[in-house]
């Protein structure tokens, strides 16, 4: 029996009075990997931000249920505590706050208990090794002066430490070199189990060589217009969105 983890029903979202998501439906069961693809400006990041609870994105109607609870009104920190995680397309730089201090505080907020410094240092070191990140990054200021790829790896580091139930990866693969894509994918696969789910937003198939998706969806003009399996991603890769647009766009 499969358990529903995320259930989005007829979601309409606007930003600055402009409607971006226009009736979006999506359900993700525990343990599943879903991929969302779609043309630029289609609303993928909007969906990701809305799921995470960004205050600028207004839910006009519809429902987001996570772990059997309606979370429309929850703040971002409350959602994180419930097990949601977003790997940002453009991670913020926070000056003066080290990766390590930040992550220790974040972990404590999510789990409700502060881990000792020594054991946390060990944990972070382990996770960084897996991601082939240099140890010194732990004591650097969060994302400050990180290269594009380093920022993305740092997102995955955060994910692997916070161990969310649902991780949304917004173009985490963009800007990564081929080796880094593999390493990041391995990082993602590590937290994947039959309880945890992943929602991958991507433009490329490369990541899907490593992370086997259960479903692929096409998000266009604020709606999921087509869903399928991995073969749908292949089709897009070869043909682009024109055919789909011709069929579904309004």
């Amino acid at each position: 029996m499969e358990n529903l983890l995320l259930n989005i029903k007829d979601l309409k979202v606007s930003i600055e009075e402009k409607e971006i998501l226009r009736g979006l439906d999506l359900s993700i069961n525990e343990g599943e990997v879903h991929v969302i693809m779609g043309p630029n400006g289609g609303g993928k990041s909007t969906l990701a931000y809305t799921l995470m609870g960004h205050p600028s994105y207004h839910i006009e109607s519809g429902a987001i249920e996570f772990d059997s609870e309606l979370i429309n009104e929850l703040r971002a920190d409350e959602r994180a505590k419930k097990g949601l995680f977003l790997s940002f397309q453009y991670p913020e730089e926070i000056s003066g706050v080290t990766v390590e201090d930040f992550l220790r505080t974040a972990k404590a907020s999510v789990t409700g208990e502060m881990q000792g410094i020594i054991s946390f240092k060990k944990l972070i070191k382990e996770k960084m090794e897996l991601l082939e990140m240099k140890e010194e990054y732990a004591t650097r200021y969060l994302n400050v002066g990180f290269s594009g790829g380093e920022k993305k790896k740092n997102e995955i580091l955060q994910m692997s430490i916070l161990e969310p139930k649902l991780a949304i990866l917004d173009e985490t693969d963009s800007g990564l070199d081929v080796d880094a894509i593999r390493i990041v994918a391995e990082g993602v696969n590590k937290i994947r189990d039959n309880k945890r789910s992943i929602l991958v937003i991507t433009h490329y198939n490369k990541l899907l060589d490593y992370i086997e998706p259960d479903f692929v969806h096409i998000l266009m003009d604020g709606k999921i217009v087509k869903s399928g399996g991995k073969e749908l991603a292949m089709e897009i890769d070869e043909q682009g969105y024109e055919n789909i647009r011709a069929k579904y766009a309004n």
Partner: protein
Amino acid sequence: MERKKTYVEDVSRTIYDIKNKFDYRFKTDKGLTPEIIKEISKEKNEPQWMTDFRLKSLEIYYSKPMPTWGVDLTDLDIDEIIAYIRPDADMKTTWEEVPEDIKDTFERLGIPQAERESLAGVGAQYDSEVVYHNIKQELVDQGVIYTDIETALVEYEDILKEYFMKLVPPTDHKFAALHGAVWSGGSFVYVPEGVNVDIPLQSYFRLNAPGAGQFEHTLIIVEKGAKLHFIEGCSAPVYNVNNLHAGCVELFIKEDATLRYSTIENWSRNMYNLNTKRALVDKNGTIEWVSGSFGSKVSMLYPMSILKGEGARSEFTGITFASTGQHLDTGTKVVHAAPHTTSTVNSKSISKNGGYAFYRGLLKVAPGAYGCKSSVSCESLMLDNISKSDTLPIIELNNDDIDIGHEAKIGRISDEAIFYLMSRGISEEEAKAMIVRGFVEPITKELPLEYAVELNNLINIELEGTIG
């Protein structure tokens, strides 16, 4: 979840706000007249030249207009200020001998404990006079002098004659003249050639009396190749009358010498803090200013470095935190008067709840001062829409063989950054505090440890309840 919405104005100030009974042995009437000045000088048993100096300063004071730039001083009525209050205590060298209530005040501020744990010497001033002074014997044995100015005037009169208000003359501006007329208390430090004072000396200034002024004078001479870290702390309980602080700091850094001068000022919000600080740096000498301005109603404070000798260096690290009803006009001035001198300025300010933080800086390079280097960075962070921040860095270059970097940033706390942190489970309040702490981190790490901790607590408390 319940969120704290009430903002308690001075909650962080609890330990500072405990007022003692206003006991004194002698005080002058309010206001300023030659008679009052003579009375102060007589009360202090001063040599004639000092009495004359005071009277001359008073004349200069009368002749100068109130500054009309920067801050609003219209509420400050000097005629309402009591210029001199001798506490009911003599200067002691052990805390046991200091009267109970005064001792308790300093205990609460953690001074005796800091002395035991991490300081080489301590001076404590209460209202107009120094009530405690002590320095480690091994420093005395090396010829280090640390005492109050009054004692110095008796024991080292020649040095005082040579240096006192020579760097900041009474003609400098109205409040320097006022200081020259009514100065009292403060510290005199002399570090002989080659002596390295490796743990800091600290003077703490406490103004207890309502409606009073504090005009302490600090004179530090660091001889050739010597080294010193001096910490100055200030606080006062809050009253509903205006208090005035017009201290003066004169620092002489000789060839190859280094002085770090740290100030943490947490005056109450009825205080006008109009302080003048200046350092004269000889060849290859270094002055390091570390300055934290948190309190007062109005501040005008611009520590100045005059790099007089070739290769002299100045480093300024400052943080200003302005909240409700506070207008803090702070910054620094650097004069490159010799070739190959270098300066760095790293200033940060935070304003919240209607506070106004203004950075005012001057960088001046003399015509013959070639090959100089300067880098100035000032950043302001406003935590809400009702607070203000401005920067005015003035740069005056009189030759073009100079390497100069300048950066000024004014911004509000970023909603995207808050969201990013919140998406990792961190509450909005903690996210803001984290960003603010991160913003001041480069400064905090320069502060003496106990003050760094205090600054962080201050940030936490100040941020509580700012979330609507």
